[in-house]
């Protein structure tokens, strides 16, 4: 089956400095992969490079989405193929309402216009899943949003667009426990609805894994995945930190 996101021996440089030094990872629809690792290990670099941020140069290796090499195409084309990135630091766009932004994004992804009335029905349904007030759609995108609202807006976007492969870059950071549960429920809903989705969950903390069960846990250190395992591995890290893994790598 071609249905998978395959990252092969990926090397990525930022401003001439090599950050990723050969990452291998395969994500199939229906799977949740958690990516953990200390600060500066290259997790966000992987996320940005996958989506096509121009600052992140792929110097070696490839990224295949359902068999198609996406490493040279623009971010909007990657999005149309079903790739989605939830930003770690979403940007504010005053003057553009959440509703208008999401409708335009959906029309662009689908390549045809959805009737406004049908879109609003869809939007209200997704907002209800995330326990969002319907007035949220009328606000300017991320403008004056709290940290939790920004993350929720990212998840709302994900639910509306229904991408096949979702990269969530520290979506759990800065959320209180109730918001975390809501966001986790949103991710689970997406995962279990309609066609299967592959999810790459980049996180620092074990706590979100109490709500979203990962099929695999990977640990990244210094631009490489040094260890992969199941949920147990994340538990070990939570208890002992990354030290043991780093030591093991250097031996």
């Amino acid at each position, binding site marked *: 089956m071609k249905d998978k996101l395959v990252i092969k021996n990926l090397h990525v440089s930022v401003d001439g400095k090599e950050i990723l030094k050969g990452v291998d990872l395969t994500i199939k629809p229906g799977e949740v992969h958690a990516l953990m690792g200390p600060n500066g290990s290259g997790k966000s670099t992987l996320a940005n490079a996958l989506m096509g941020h121009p600052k992140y140069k792929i110097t070696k290796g490839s990224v295949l989405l359902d068999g198609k090499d996406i490493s040279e195409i623009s971010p909007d084309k990657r999005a149309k193929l079903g790739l989605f990135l939830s930003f770690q630091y979403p940007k504010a766009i005053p003057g553009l*309402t959440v*509703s*208008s932004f999401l409708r335009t994004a959906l029309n662009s992804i689908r390549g045809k*216009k959805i*009737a*406004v*009335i*049908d879109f*609003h029905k869809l939007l209200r349904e997704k907002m209800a899943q995330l326990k969002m007030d*319907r*007035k949220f*759609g*009328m606000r300017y995108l991320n403008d004056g949003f709290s940290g939790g609202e920004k993350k929720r807006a990212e998840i709302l976007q994900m639910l509306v667009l229904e991408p096949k492969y979702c990269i969530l870059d520290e979506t759990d950071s800065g959320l209180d426990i109730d918001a975390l549960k809501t966001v986790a429920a949103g991710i689970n809903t997406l995962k279990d609805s309609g066609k299967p989705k592959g999810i790459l969950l980049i996180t620092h903390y074990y706590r979100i894994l109490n709500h979203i069960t990962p099929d695999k846990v990977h640990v990244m250190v210094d631009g490489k995945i040094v260890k992969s395992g199941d949920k147990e591995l994340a538990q070990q890290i939570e208890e002992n930190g990354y030290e043991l893994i780093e030591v093991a790598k250097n031996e």
Partner: protein
Amino acid sequence: MSKYSKKSISEMDSKEENKKIIAELKTCEDPELGIDIWSLGLIYDIIHNDKDLQIVMTFTSPMCPFGPQIVEQIDKKLTELGYVVNVELVFNPAWKPSEEVKEMLGFSG
């Protein structure tokens, strides 16, 4: 009073024979608002008489400068479906945006 009455969106929506027509109306846009005429609630009734089709509708205002353009779109798209189309304009009752439309247009707090 006009000889036509205004039907609700849900009433028109519930009729099987209207399905294809509504799908087309959803692709006709008011160029000024960028919203399709079905979502705006400009369609008051859809009357079938075999292949003869009467679309009873209004504009956001009687002076709507895009009126002829909108009617032309409807006529073209529904003719392609095989209907003989007759667009009937009525301004009584006048168009009033529903709460939902206000929300879609971005002017409710």
